[in-house]
C-alpha cells in the first residue's frame, strides 16, 4: 500500500482498504477472501459520519484550533467532545480547558451565495481567539455540496499567518465508512504537521490511542521506553516530532492504520507488526516484537513473566466464575476481534459478533497486524455480521442469542438492558489492554453478571421500539437480496 499525501482529500476506505459495511458469515470466510462485495440495506438507522470522527482526534489537540465549515447542527458532537477533552486533561494533571473550536454557522443564504467569506472570517477569529499553533478547517455535507473552495482559502491564510492552516476534507456524504474520518484527520497531520526527524530518539515509541495516556505506562517504564501518546491530548509540537520515534504501536486498526503506515512510509518510523495487546497471547507477541525492535529482548521476557505473575491469582478466580458464560460482542471491526481474545482467555464462549465495518486489507499489508487471523488461529472460527452500527440488527441478534453478557461499543447499551441482558460498554478508553487489562475487563463482566438487578429492573419496566415481527426475523434479512416474511 502507498499513503499518498499530495492531495488534501484522503483516499476513501472503500477503495483503499476494500472496506465493507454489510455482510453475514464467519471469520474464516472473511479471512479467505479480500474481494467480498459490499451489501447494502433497504432499511437503515442513524449511523455516523467522517466529520464526527475527525473531531474525535482534531479537537483533542491541546493548542490547535478547529474551524468547522457547516451549519450549527454539525457541531452537535462538540459539547461531549469537550467533556472528554476536559476529563482527559484532568486525569493527566494537565491544564483543563475547553476545546478550541469554531463553527461557521452556515445559514440558508450561505447555501445560495456561498460561505467563503464567512469561513475566512472564522479562521481569522480562530487565530485571534485561540492563538493556535495550527488551524484545521473541516468540511461538512452542506459546505461541500455548495462547493466552497476550502483548500484555496486555507492556503492563502496559511501563507499570511505563518502557521499550518489545513483543509481537512471529511464531508459526511462522501463515504459510507465513518472510520474514514480518522484517516482524514491523520492525513492532515501527516501532510502538514509532522516534520522530518532532526534526530531519532532510540527510546521513544509512539502510541496511537485516545485520551488514556497511562495505559502502557507501567510496562514501558519497566522496559526503559518513553511513550509518545498520540493524537488526543498531544500538543502540535509533540506531533511535529513523532517522526523521531523508533516505532509506532497502536491497538485498533480503525483508528491508527493510516497514521502508523504513513509514519512508516514517509518518516521511517516502523509500525510494530503484531496483534493489538488484548488477551495474553497477543500481549506476549506485541511485547516481544517491541523488544526485538528496541533490542530489549531479555527485559521483555522478564516483564512478561512478572506481569503474568501479578495477575495469576485474579485470573484463576475470574476463570472460575466466568468459564462457560456466553458473550455477544458488538464493536468496530478490529476491536471486536480483539475483545474475543479477552472473552476467550476468561474461559467464556462467544456466541456471535457484530462489527461496524470490515477492512479487507490494512494500510500496512502485513499479516502479523491482522487480528482477525490471529483470533481465528488462536481461538477458532466465529460468526461475524458486518452491521454498520445498525442498532436494529444488534438488538435482534442479542435477543436471539440471549447471551449472559453483551459487550458493545458506540451503541447505546440500553437496548441490551431492555432485553434483560447485562451489558457493558467497551468504552473509548480501552482499559482492557495488556495483562492487567484482562483482569479489569473480567472484573467488569463478573460484576455485571453477578448482580444484574438494575438490568432486570430496566427490562421489566421498559419496551423496545421494535415490533415482535422484527425480533423474529433473520438478523441480516434487510441486507439487499435477503428475504423477510
Amino acid at each position, binding site marked *: 500500500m502507498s499513503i499518498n499525501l499530495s492531495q488534501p482529500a484522503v483516499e476513501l476506505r472503500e477503495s483503499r482498504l476494500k472496506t465493507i459495511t454489510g455482510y453475514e458469515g464467519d471469520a474464516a470466510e472473511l479471512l479467505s477472501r479480500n474481494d467480498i462485495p459490499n451489501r447494502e440495506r433497504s432499511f*437503515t438507522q442513524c449511523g455516523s459520519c467522517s466529520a464526527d470522527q475527525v473531531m474525535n482526534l482534531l479537537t483533542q489537540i491541546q493548542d490547535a484550533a478547529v474551524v468547522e465549515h457547516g451549519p450549527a447542527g454539525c457541531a452537535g*458532537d462538540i459539547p461531549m467532545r469537550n467533556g472528554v477533552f476536559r476529563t482527559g486533561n484532568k486525569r493527566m494533571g494537565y491544564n483543563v480547558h475547553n476545546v478550541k473550536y*469554531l463553527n461557521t454557522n452556515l*445559514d440558508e443564504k450561505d447555501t445560495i451565495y456561498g460561505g467563503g467569506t464567512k469561513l475566512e472570517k472564522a479562521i481569522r477569529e480562530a487565530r485571534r481567539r485561540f492563538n493556535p499553533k495550527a488551524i484545521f478547517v473541516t468540511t461538512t455535507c452542506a459546505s461541500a455540496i455548495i462547493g466552497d473552495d476550502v483548500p484555496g482559502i486555507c492556503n492563502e491564510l496559511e501563507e499570511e499567518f505563518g502557521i499550518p492552516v489545513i483543509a481537512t476534507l471529511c464531508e459526511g456524504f462522501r463515504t459510507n465508512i465513518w472510520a474514514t474520518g480518522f484517516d482524514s484527520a491523520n492525513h492532515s497531520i501527516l501532510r502538514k504537521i509532522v516534520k522530518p526527524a532532526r534526530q531519532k530518539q532510540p527510546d521513544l515509541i509512539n502510541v496511537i490511542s485516545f485520551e488514556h495516556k497511562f495505559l502502557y505506562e507501567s510496562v514501558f517504564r519497566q522496559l526503559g521506553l518513553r511513550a509518545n501518546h498520540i493524537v488526543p491530548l498531544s500538543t502540535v509540537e509533540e506531533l511535529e516530532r513523532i517522526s523521531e520515534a523508533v516505532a509506532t504501536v497502536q491497538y485498533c486498526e480503525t483508528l491508527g492504520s493510516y497514521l502508523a503506515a504513513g509514519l512508516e512510509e514517509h518518516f521511517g518510523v516502523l509500525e510494530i507488526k503484531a496483534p493489538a495487546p488484548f488477551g495474553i497471547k497477543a500481549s506476549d507477541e506485541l511485547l516481544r516484537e517491541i523488544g526485538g525492535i528496541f533490542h530489549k529482548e531479555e527485559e521483555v521476557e522478564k516483564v512478561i513473566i512478572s506481569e503474568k505473575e501479578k495477575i495469576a491469582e485474579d485470573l484463576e478466580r475470574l476463570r472460575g466464575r466466568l468459564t462457560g458464560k456466553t458473550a455477544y460482542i458488538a464493536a468496530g471491526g478490529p476491536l471486536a476481534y480483539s475483545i474475543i481474545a479477552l472473552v476467550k482467555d476468561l474461559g467464556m464462549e462467544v456466541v456471535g459478533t457484530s462489527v461496524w465495518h470490515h477492512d479487507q486489507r490494512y494500510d500496512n499489508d502485513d499479516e502479523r497486524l491482522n487480528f482477525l487471523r490471529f483470533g481465528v488461529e488462536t481461538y477458532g472460527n466465529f460468526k461475524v455480521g458486518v452491521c454498520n452500527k445498525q442498532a436494529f440488527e444488534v438488538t435482534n441478534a442479542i435477543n436471539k442469542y440471549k447471551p449472559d453478557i453483551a459487550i458493545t461499543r458506540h451503541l447505546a447499551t*440500553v437496548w441490551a438492558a431492555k432485553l434483560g441482558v447485562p451489558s457493558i460498554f467497551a468504552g473509548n478508553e480501552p482499559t482492557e489492554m495488556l495483562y492487567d487489562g484482562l483482569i479489569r475487563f473480567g472484573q467488569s463482566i463478573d460484576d455485571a453478571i453477578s448482580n444484574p438487578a438494575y438490568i432486570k429492573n430496566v427490562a421489566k419496566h421498559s419496551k423496545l421500539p421494535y415490533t415482535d415481527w422484527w425480533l423474529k426475523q433473520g438478523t441480516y434479512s434487510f441486507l439487499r437480496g435477503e428475504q423477510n416474511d
Partner: protein
Amino acid sequence: MTEIIQGPRHGCALGAQQTVVAIERAIPILHAGPGCGSKLHRGLSLAGGYQGAGYAGADAIPCTNMVEKDVVFGGTDKLRDVIEGTLKIMDGDFFVVLTGCTADIIGDDVGSIVNEFREQGVPIVHAETAGFKGDAYKGHELVLEAIIKQHLKPAAQIEKGLVNVFASVPRHDPFWEGDLNEIKKLLAGIGLKANILFGYNSGGIRALEAIPAAQFNLVVSPYIGLKIAELLGEKFQTPYLHYPVLPVGGIETSKFLRTVAEFAGTISEQTEKFVVQQEDEFYHYIVRAADVLTEYRLNQPKRFYNINDASYALGFSKFLVNELGYFPIHQFINEDVPEEYKDAIEGYFKELSPEISSDITFTQDGGAIEDKIRSIKALTAPLVLASSWEFDIAKEISGLHLSVGLPIIDRLILHHTYVGYIGGLNLVEDIYTRLLSKNRE
C-alpha cells in the same frame, strides 16, 4: 449573515428529531446525512444532563444516511424503502419524516413520498428541517407546525378545562420533563387539565389529536410557541394566553396561576386556597434557609449573570431579583432569537422589578460572551447560571458556577425542575449547595 459560533449549544433545525422522540411511541425518520442524528442526539440529549435514548431516539432513529450517489441521483427511492422498513420494524403509533441539509439542498420531493404512505392510512407527516434553517428551537416549531397542518382535524367538541401547554422544549431544554410535569400539577391545582404533549404519560398521538379540543392554548415562554398558538388560533379558533415568564418561585408562580385561572374562568375560592397554601409552603422553606442566605463569610454571590435561552434567563433573573435580593450584571440570550421578538425580550428584562433592570446581549457565540464578561468589573464574586462551556470563564472571574443551561455535562438530570414553587426551592438548594461544597469540602 449569521454569526460564527464558539461553544455550540442549540444544534440545528433537524434537532426537531428530539421533539418527535419526546412524543410517546412516535418515531422520527430522517432523510439526512449519516452523522446528523447521532450528533444531534449527543448535543441536545446526552449533553443535556444525560437524557438517554428515549423510546426510539439515538441510534434507533431510522435514517437514509445519504451518501454521494444520493446527492447525485436523488434520495427519494431510498427514503421510500426506509419508510417501508420502518413500518415493519419499528413499533410506533406516529411517524415524522424530517429532512436535513443534503436532502433540502438537492431538493428531494419528500412531500410526495410521504403522501403515498398517508394515502394508505399511515399516520405520517413531514417537515423540512435542514440545519441551515436555524437552531433546534426553530426545528421544534417547524415540526409542530407540520403536525398541526398535516395531521390535526377540528374537534367535534371543545373540552372545557383542557389546556395545551407550550413551555419547555422537549429533549432540548435539559429540565423539560420535570418542568412540564410540574406545570401539569400546578394547573391541576387550579382546576385545569394540562395536555403537555411530551414525555412520561403524556399520551402520544392521542394527546396530539386532542390539541384542537382544548379550551385554550398556554404559551409559557418569551416567544417559543407563540407561532404555534397563532397557527392553532387560525386553524381551530382556539384562543391563547401568552405568559412570557417561566414561573420560578413564590411570587411568579402565584401570579402565573392567578393569571391562568382568570383567563380560563376557573378562578374561585378553591383555586385561591390552592395558591395560598402552595405559596405558604414555599416560604416555609425559604425562611428556614435564612441563616445560610444571610451568611456573609461564605462570599455570597449577590450579583449574577445568566447565560441561557431567553426563557430560563428571564425566569431565573426574575427569581434572583425578586425572591433573593440579587442584582443583575448582564444577561446573555444564546439561542437564535428571531428579530421580531428581540425588542419584547429586551423589554421584559427592563422590568425585572419596578426598580431593577438588566442589559442583555443576544449571541450564540460563546467567544463574544466571554469577551463581554472580561470587560466588566464585578463588585463581588458573581453567580454564573450558565452551561458547561462556562466553567473556565466563571473560574477566571472567581464566580460561583452552576450548570443550568445546555450543554450540561456535569449533572445527571432526570425529573429535576426549576419551575413553580418546587422549582424555586430546587434552585436555592442547588446554588447554595454549590456555594457550601466549594467552601467546605
